């Protein structure tokens, strides 16, 4: 009996395995193409240029700032969506998920119409404070946050909804104040999802292109992140473009693999 079961487990249906391999190929084949084109000998020289350093710094700063901003406003948003009943909640949830679905270029254009110098909010903001968001590093952070924050909100909201509220109830019964319950019970229990959401948000922010170039423009040292540098280099200097692409793949893969075992089990 056990022998039979063991054999079943060790021999999965061939069709499934074949399809799975095909599925994996979708991800792996482009990577192989990139590796095949990589100018390995020139790689160190290509990756130490000023433009690469600028783009790497900007990508790190903007993706981390977007992750922090998402944590500050996205986690409360997830909490409200999970715990507060209000009319139109499903519409709000749809609005939050919208950036996952619409093309980032559309998001960038919408940001420009809203927060540009002549935009709905941007114009009064500019007149009151002199602040101009497009074509600035702040513009990059905003565009990247727009595209990446939904990953944090849906992950944390899902975790909060799945949380057994009896733990929080018990803590409250024992006299804990609401903030204490949040800090000592709720957050520790959703910590794995929270971290997973933050990592996903950061990874998406690092790869953001469309909203950034549409809203924040493209200038080395100020708004040209790694994806933008790859895009520009692809049309002028393919070796640099490939080297930059490889750098992005390496950074993303390293972080995702390193965190996978520890934090992703909840996903």
């Amino acid at each position: 009996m056990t022998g039979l079961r063991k054999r079943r487990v060790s021999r999965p249906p061939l069709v499934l395995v074949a399809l799975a391999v095909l599925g994996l190929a979708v991800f792996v084949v482009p990577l192989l193409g990139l590796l095949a084109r990589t100018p390995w000998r020139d790689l160190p020289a290509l990756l130490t240029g000023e433009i690469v350093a600028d783009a790497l710094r900007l990508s790190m700063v903007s993706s981390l700032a977007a992750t922090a901003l998402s944590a500050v406003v996205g986690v409360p948003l997830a909490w409200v969506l999970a715990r507060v009943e209000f009319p139109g909640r499903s519409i709000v949830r749809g609005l939050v998920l919208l950036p996952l679905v619409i093309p980032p270029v559309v998001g960038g254009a919408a940001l420009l119409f809203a927060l540009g110098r002549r935009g709905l909010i941007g114009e009064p903001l500019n007149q009151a404070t002199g602040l101009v968001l497009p074509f600035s590093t702040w513009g990059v952070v905003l565009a990247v946050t727009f595209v990446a924050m939904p990953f944090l909100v849906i992950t944390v909201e899902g975790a909060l909804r799945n949380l057994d509220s009896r733990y929080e109830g018990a803590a409250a019964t024992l006299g804990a104040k609401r903030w204490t319950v949040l800090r000592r019970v709720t957050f520790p229990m959703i910590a794995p999802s929270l971290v997973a959401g933050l990592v996903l948000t950061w990874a998406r922010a690092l790869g953001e292109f469309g909203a950034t170039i549409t809203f924040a423009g493209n200038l080395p040292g100020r708004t040209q992140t790694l994806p933008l540098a790859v895009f520009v280099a692809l049309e002028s200097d393919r070796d640099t473009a490939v080297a930059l692409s490889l750098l992005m793949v390496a950074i993303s893969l390293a972080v995702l693999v390193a965190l996978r075992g520890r934090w992703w089990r909840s996903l």
Partner: protein
Amino acid sequence: MIAVSEPARARAVVGFAAVLVVTGCAGSGNQSTVLVSAAASLTDAFVEIEAAFEEANPGVDVVLNLGGSSALREQILGGAPADVFASANPSNMAQVREAGEVDGEPRVFIRNRLQIAVPAGNPAGVTGPADLAREELLIGLCAEAVPCGEFGRQALANAGVSAAVDTREPDVRALLTKIGAGELDAGIVYVTDVASSVGEVDGVDIADADNVVAEYPIAVLTGAPNRDGATDFVEFVLSDEGRAILVKHGFESP
């Protein structure tokens, strides 16, 4: 590589998708399709040429794949089976030709000049290239890989101006849109782009001595799935009728 959608990559994908649709439909009827990869600055003129050509050739469907010439070049070199390539400068065409992708000799069909575009009413009071050095203005140029970026760089060098650039846009239409929206104070585009956006942007001339004349070559591609249609289209662009449409849009005859 990167799991994001990007405007020109997206255009590349649209190009490929168009090709797939084209090849998918070719056998299903007597409709033949000509896929034309044309520089972004040709947008308005080629839309009109497309309509005129289709009217003169019933049963032929022209599909325009518009983008920065360098992005189009990369698509063609990457194997996207377009029929015709119309570039905004000779160098992108030359690279496609060196790769053996051009059938015959590319022919210069039109010329264009540069102009400074400013939002309608010229709120920043731009009077010439020297104003592009003003730090307090938001200045946009085309990325140097696209022809308008390369020509703009030459014109600024001719005028001895070091521009205070705030963004390098991936193609001339993207730049024009941001100027028209008032998000940029000035940028260098083609005369024809300004002519296409009357009411949204105004043009400020660049002195002839500093200006750069852009030559646009057109050619049938070696891998053209529809060589006859491609040849007809190129002949139409070079004909009096085609040239009249281009001149109407502000281009100069070669």
